[in-house]
């Protein structure tokens, strides 16, 4: 290290930043991570399901050591209207292959673990410091400015999350538009391990993921979720921001009404709210992709829009980890060649292209627009619950089943069902 200059500065100690830092430090690069929160993860929240494959590739068997909450073995999806719901339920055992598993996680516990790994590998962490700007000379990023002080480096990795103010300042990231994102609100509700087990039909260490469509997001794009943690649950609502102003309900109200729904209420009863959090979710996928590589700079994780709305789940954490890894490969390569220019760093784009990130982003390219269809959140949940109601209601002489069901299909519209079914299949 020449004077105070680092080989690389990483802005943001989320999963993307910490992963990159770990790998670069391990390879021998002088690595500095700057995080505005008081510790890695202090500012971060997520819905709660980490698909293990990305971390597993870097730390085989990580879940034995990392503070994950429960291994997800129980999946539920509910379609709900204001007062009722229909649920699909799938139960299994944990996959024999660790890379196929997924875990519920809490970021203020997981991120510090990853940061510690990076620290043990030699990365230097400075927490409680906000980076205000980037140091740019002759069109090349060569450090950061924080608290009026300059800190130099050969290159910078922006891992500063979905509101990447720094990426915008550089002109690499487009300002996120309401069309390309949703807001997620979440409560962590303490129940105790036994109640979690009993209410979600799980044993210790095993957990459930439960998604809800329809009523939670007031009939607009979005949905509700519950993930079981060790002795609490993470419960939340995601709402596509471009529909703001159309719904009569406020976002906090959606969460409250969701919690009071007859399907959800018994699950949370007697629980104690221990945290209320919110975060924007990038959902534009390829459509909001920024310029990923610049002179002396790379953009990773949510800051790069690497997040997938796959309909039944939001996926960003495994992409954050994998993009951090791809950036580290490029950075190490650049460092070995002592060339931190954009063309040298473009190895990053090649790494991404070869990884599941770009494949999945391409695969799901059309999904957000397909999902932005009010029938999904109104007509179809109403159709499902209506059918069930008629099926289970006895109030006199019975009518043939077919006669009970057809009106519900008619109400949703045969043509719509066919059209949406067709488009749905084609969008993935």
């Amino acid at each position, binding site marked *: 290290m020449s004077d105070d200059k680092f080989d690389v500065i990483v802005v943001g100690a989320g999963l993307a930043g910490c992963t990159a830092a770990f790998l670069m430090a391990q390879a021998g690069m002088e690595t500095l991570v700057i995080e505005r929160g008081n510790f890695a993860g202090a500012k971060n929240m997520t819905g709660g399901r980490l698909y293990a494959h990305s971390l597993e590739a870097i730390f085989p068997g990580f879940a034995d050591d990392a503070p994950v909450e429960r291994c997800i073995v129980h999946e539920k999806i509910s379609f709900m209207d*204001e007062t009722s719901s229909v649920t699909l339920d799938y139960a299994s055992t944990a996959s024999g292959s660790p890379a196929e598993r997924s875990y519920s996680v*809490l970021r203020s516990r997981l*991120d510090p673990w990853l940061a510690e790994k990076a620290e043990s590998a030699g990365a230097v962490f400075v927490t409680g*410091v906000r980076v205000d700007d980037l140091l740019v000379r002759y069109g090349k990023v060569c450090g950061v400015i*924080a608290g009026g002080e300059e800190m130099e480096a050969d290159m910078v990795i922006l891992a500063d999350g979905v509101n990447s103010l720094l990426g915008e300042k550089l002109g690499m990231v487009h300002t996120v538009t309401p069309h390309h994102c949703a807001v997620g609100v979440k409560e962590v509700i303490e129940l105790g391990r036994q109640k979690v087990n009993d209410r979600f039909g799980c044993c210790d260490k095993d957990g459930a993921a439960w998604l809800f469509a329809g009523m939670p997001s007031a009939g607009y794009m979005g949905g509700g979720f519950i993930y079981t943690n060790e002795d609490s649950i993470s419960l939340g609502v995601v709402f596509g*921001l471009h529909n703001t102003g159309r719904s009569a309900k*406020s*976002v906090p109200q959606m969460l409250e009404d969701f919690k009071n729904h007859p399907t959800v209420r018994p699950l949370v009863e007697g629980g104690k709210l221990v945290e*209320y959090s919110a975060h924007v979710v990038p959902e534009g996928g390829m459509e909001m992709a920024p310029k990923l590589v610049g002179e002396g700079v790379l953009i990773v994780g949510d800051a790069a829009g690497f997040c997938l709305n796959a309909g039944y789940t939001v996926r960003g954490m495994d992409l954050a980890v994998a993009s951090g890894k791809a950036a580290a490969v490029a950075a190490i390569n650049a460092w070995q060649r002592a060339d931190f220019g954009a063309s040298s760093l473009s190895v990053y784009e090649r790494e991404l292209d070869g990884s599941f990130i770009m494949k999945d982003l391409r695969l799901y390219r059309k999904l957000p627009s397909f999902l932005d269809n009010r029938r999904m959140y109104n007509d179809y949940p109403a159709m499902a619950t209506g059918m069930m109601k008629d099926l289970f209601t006895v109030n006199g002489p019975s009518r043939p089943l077919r006669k009970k069901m057809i009106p519900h299909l008619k109400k949703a519209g045969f043509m719509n069902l066919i059209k949406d079914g067709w488009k749905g299949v084609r969008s993935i």
Partner: protein
Amino acid sequence: MNTRVNVDVKLGVNKFFVDEGNPHIEIAENPSLQEYAKLEAACPAGLYRRDEKGAVRFDYAGCLECGTCRILCGKTIVKRWEYPNGTFGVEFRYG
């Protein structure tokens, strides 16, 4: 459905280090009320409010730093949106 949700009670369980007298979000003087209504509906912390007389009242303490207001009405209402200074703002213990 039931009574209006009281977000303040929820914020009360969070850990905040408020940077007194140093707001990280500033809003325009006379915002369009139509735009403002979007923020009243969307801000998860319920910080965009109106008093009895209908005058806008925004308080940055309690901000969850989600970025929603910046994205929704950035140019029209939110004059300045930054993250709080290092060490300040919300601190998640679970996340």
